[in-house]
């Protein structure tokens, strides 16, 4: 095989100069089934990192562990130099990790506006004025016209945009996106892609992306490829070869 083996991936992630997120030797189980195996992983400050892999290899499991929804059996997770393994999901959110889960998880019986305002919960200072910055509507103009609609009444693509906007409301330092283009028509995919790129450019935040859509994957600076719960390849996305794409993306 032409791509780097996992040992090389360790070196490359260990070589990140200024890591936003640094994961070493992560092992995660669902009951007795071993899902993530000795995962080493990192996201550099201000970079966009993409995690690719076929269905069911453990990508969502990885993101859930980063968010604190699953507890690893071994391994360390450092966020901006601080260990967060023992922190609860709400504490992690308030530290600056914004999460857009697979399936969006928009709160169905709250209005769009309320859903967006909930994004402010991640901000440390309480009592600031509860308003939605204009920037959000510039990124996702659809949302502006239906602030008083129920979250559950939106289409899939609109829900996805709402979920990303909601995460951005909390001004995260690391934005975690789990398959944001799943089941969405191409024109909206391009909109979402453009919005994410614009955020990175304007705010200088890091992005961790799980994605199947090749065009979006290519926007990332670095990729990790996962197979059976382990990282088996990694490198700069411009070096993403046709073989790897064939092997790890369901295209």
């Amino acid at each position, binding site marked *: 095989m032409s791509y780097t083996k996992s040992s090389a991936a360790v070196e490359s992630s260990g070589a990140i100069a200024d890591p936003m997120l640094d994961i070493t030797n992560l092992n995660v189980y669902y009951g007795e089934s071993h899902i993530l195996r000795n995962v080493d992983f990192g996201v550099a400050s201000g970079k966009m990192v993409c995690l690719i892999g076929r269905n069911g290899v453990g990508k969502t499991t990885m993101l859930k562990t980063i*968010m604190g*929804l699953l507890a690893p059996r071994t391994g360390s997770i450092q966020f901006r130099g601080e260990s967060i393994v023992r922190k*609860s*999901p*709400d504490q992690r*959110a*308030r530290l600056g990790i914004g*999460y857009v*889960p697979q399936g969006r*998880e928009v*709160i*169905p*019986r*709250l209005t769009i506006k*309320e859903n967006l*305002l*909930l*994004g402010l*919960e*991640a*901000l440390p200072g309480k009592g600031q004025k*509860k308003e939605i910055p204009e920037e959000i509507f510039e990124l996702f103009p659809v949302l502006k016209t239906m602030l008083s609609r129920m979250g*559950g009444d939106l289409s899939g693509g609109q829900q996805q945009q709402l979920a990303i906007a*909601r995460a951005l409301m*909390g001004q995260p330092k690391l934005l975690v996106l789990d398959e944001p283009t799943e089941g969405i028509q191409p024109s909206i995919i391009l909109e979402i892609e453009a919005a994410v790129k614009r955020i990175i450019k304007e705010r200088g935040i890091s992005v961790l992306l799980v994605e199947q859509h090749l065009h979006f994957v290519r926007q990332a600076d670095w990729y990790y490829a996962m197979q059976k719960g382990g990282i088996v390849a990694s490198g700069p996305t411009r070096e993403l070869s046709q073989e790897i794409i064939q092997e790890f993306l369901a295209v």
Partner: protein
Amino acid sequence: MSGLLDGLFNGISIGAVLLLAALGLAIVFGLMGVINMAHGELIMLGAYTTFVVQNIFKPLGAPWSDFYIFFALVAAFIVAALVGVLLERTVVRYLYGRPLETLLATWGVSLILQQFIRSVSPQFVVGVGLFCALYFGAIAIISRRPDFERIRNWAIAIMVPISVAIALTASNVLGQSFKLGFTRPWFGTQGVDVTAPKWLRGGLAIGDSQLPYTRLFIIALTIVCLLGIYWFLNKTNWGLRIRSVTQNRTMSACLGIPTQKVDAITFAIGSGLAGIAGCAVALLGSVSSNTGQAYIVDTFMVVVIGGVGKLIGSIMAAGAIGILSYVIGSNAIGPLFDSMPFVKSIFEFFATASMAKVVVFALIVVFLQFRPAGLFPQKGRTVEA
């Protein structure tokens, strides 16, 4: 005509008490899905708090003793809310998602609270207080040691008997030296009575019928509580957090909402409302340690009939059950069948409070056959969550 008005008014006032009692449950059971069998005892605690506040204000004379009821409302809310939070933090929290265990555990708590009210006396307070001070004090001191985790079980095994022994001896010695004044329970098994303040006695005369002021007061109180809850849930930040956590706990946590705090606050508010209901119950009649038992079944009925998680459903259900109970219990329909003695005698047979309850429950069983999810079932995909 005045008979109809009477019936409507009495039905609504029975419904108002039910609704007030059920409102807290609608929040705890409806929003959090926790079956709290001790809810009735929280109502009872509110009623006893009213009694205590009344006795404190009585010697203060005219202006104070007239308005003790407002202080009692606040005190009852706080006492019940605190007990509710204690219950949530120490018991319910460990049983989320396990309804059967929650039911059993809170039922146990309800028995403890009933016995507590029966036997609480200065001696009892000193005994329990001393035990808690000794035991928790000692554990707090020992837990500073670096090897605490290792000696923890030993420490507990030694401190429990020592604390029990000291507390028992001390309270017995005090009991023997001060005799009855120290050992007699404050409330005992007999009921206690709250007298309504002067301005709540009597009633408003409309035509031939008389609307008692206490009942009007309770209806007003219920409306205020409803508006308050509506405002809290829909217009405040904590209300938004509560609604969010109810619908999607994991995602709410991922957004940065402190879910444990939200649980505690939700429980506190539901329990506090039970305390306020207790205040209302105390105005209606004698209060005893069994008061809570009388309400728990009815309040669950209200929440189930209304549709879990829907306040509007609880309101309709409480009104319907209240009016139905009154109409059947007071034999308001019987006289209409003067020409049919058989039908009339049937209505007369059911015209007692307990038989009316039987009929209402039978109707509820029939109703649930047709609408198992209540008047206002939840729609959408959050139902299973």
